[in-house]
């Protein structure tokens, strides 16, 4: 399958500070790729380079098989959607008028506005003025704007950071729809549950370097310890090692009817991140 994004040894220096160092990855068509890391780890810088808003200091970055800086070409920009941390909405205008502008810019029929507002659960609020919206609603409007023209490649920088679980679920459903239509998604987040739920592969970025890359399930397996936890009827948790000895103990507990629940001790993505970087993801 073709690579939509290809990055080789990417580096970015600001004055004397290294923002990115030897970053390499590929993203295939239709893939949802999570770029995970704490604030200041280089996630937004990577998005800026990939969307031609910033030039790299060294290395190569290709989007749609062409150097990323060629996305400055207006015709190419129609193929991408970008959601950044700043809303970039016109505060005096209504939700509808904000999206209407982008319909004009992307040559999209106005009927699409209701479709995207449905996706982000804002269809009944279309006439509301942006300045009167809550942070979460504003976030959903910017998402609707990024979805509006059904981009081939979508960059989402912390898309659900201001949303409650119900509205996050709306966004996830919307992203699923885009994915079904073949949209490639580049997602930065520090919400590990979101990454596990949405991403086919994730990369851990720390201090400008990729530390680990792979599918979430595979990474959890790779970093799992060889134990399971058994909750007993007296409230105690017993940790059993996998293998004959653990199996015998488990058999004994089961036959004595003492087992309340059994949990595998696979780490979360957050646990893995802390293990390899020694830093928390917030």
């Amino acid at each position, binding site marked *: 399958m073709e690579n939509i994004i290809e990055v080789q040894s990417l580096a970015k220096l600001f004055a004397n500070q290294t923002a990115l160092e030897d970053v390499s990855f590929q993203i295939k068509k239709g893939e949802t790729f999570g770029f995970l890391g704490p604030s200041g780890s280089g996630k937004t810088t990577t998005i800026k380079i990939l969307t031609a808003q910033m030039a790299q200091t060294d290395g190569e970055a290709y989007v749609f098989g062409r150097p990323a800086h060629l996305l400055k070409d*207006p015709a190419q920009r129609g193929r991408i959607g970008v959601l950044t941390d700043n809303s970039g*909405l016109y505060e005096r*205008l209504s939700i509808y008028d904000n999206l209407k502008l982008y319909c004009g810019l992307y040559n999209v029929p106005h009927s699409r506005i209701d479709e995207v507002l449905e996706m982000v659960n804002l269809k009944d609020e279309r006439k509301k003025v942006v300045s009167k919206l809550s942070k979460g609603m504003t976030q959903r409007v910017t998402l609707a704007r990024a979805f509006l023209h059904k981009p081939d490649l979508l960059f989402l920088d912390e898309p659900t950071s201001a949303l409650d679980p119900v509205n996050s679920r709306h966004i996830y459903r919307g992203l699923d729809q885009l994915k079904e239509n073949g949209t490639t998604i580049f997602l930065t987040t520090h919400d590990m549950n979101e990454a596990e739920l949405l991403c086919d592969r994730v990369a851990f970025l720390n201090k400008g370097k990729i530390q680990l890359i792979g599918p979430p399930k595979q990474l959890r397996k790779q970093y799992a310890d060889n134990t399971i936890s058994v909750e007993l009827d007296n409230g105690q948790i017993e940790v059993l090692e996998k293998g004959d000895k653990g199996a015998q103990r488990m058999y004994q507990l089961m036959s004595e009817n003492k087992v309340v629940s059994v949990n595998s001790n696979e780490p979360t993505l957050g646990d893995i991140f802390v293990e390899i970087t020694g830093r928390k993801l917030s």
Partner: protein
Amino acid sequence: MTFSLKRTLAIFQKDYKDVSKNMYVSFTVIVPLLMAFLYGMQGDMGVDMVYTVINMSLSLVGAYIQCSLIAEEKEKNTLRGLMLSPASTLEILAGKSLLTFVTTILVIVFSAMIIDYQPENIVIVGVAIALSTLFYIGLGTILGLVTKSVMEASVVIMPFFFLFTFGSYATLLAERFPVLKAAEYMPNTQLIELAKEVQTGAGFGDIWSYLAVICVWIAAVFILSYVTFKKRMMD
């Protein structure tokens, strides 16, 4: 380079709706009209007085409003959205300038009606004012792009407002201070000189040099605003 009228008009329509709810811009538009009313009450006005009002309209509406609109787009981070869309630099700049152009021309027309200014040759004066408006829009665009907020833009524009509204009076002191002769080549002075010639019956053949100087100013500000915009596209 691509140019889509649809995209340009989409930006224009958005600006129209946005500006109509912007009290700050509405107030700025009224100021030249108030000045025209006050000057008009004095009765018969010379060309210099008439063009003080017209140059004020140009610098206050053409440059100041354009500068504020661009600065606000930057401050609110909305310009980034336009830059990341398929709209080209030319479409964005044209879309952002169209509303200012129309507003400036309307303010000048109403001001001229209030002070009862009737040029001998409306076509020549119309062309000169339209060209001058382009210069002030270009100037406002550059200043809007280099400032970070509407507040900063309001301060930065002030010297230019005074220079292009009252700067032509500096030529009166040119004999004592030869350096002030340079003011003769400013676009506002050129517009006044052109208007004076037109009132004495001059035609296009007599005033082309004034238009040429104004066109040079337009070319300079538009090249500079295009380059500044391109630079602003990259962090």
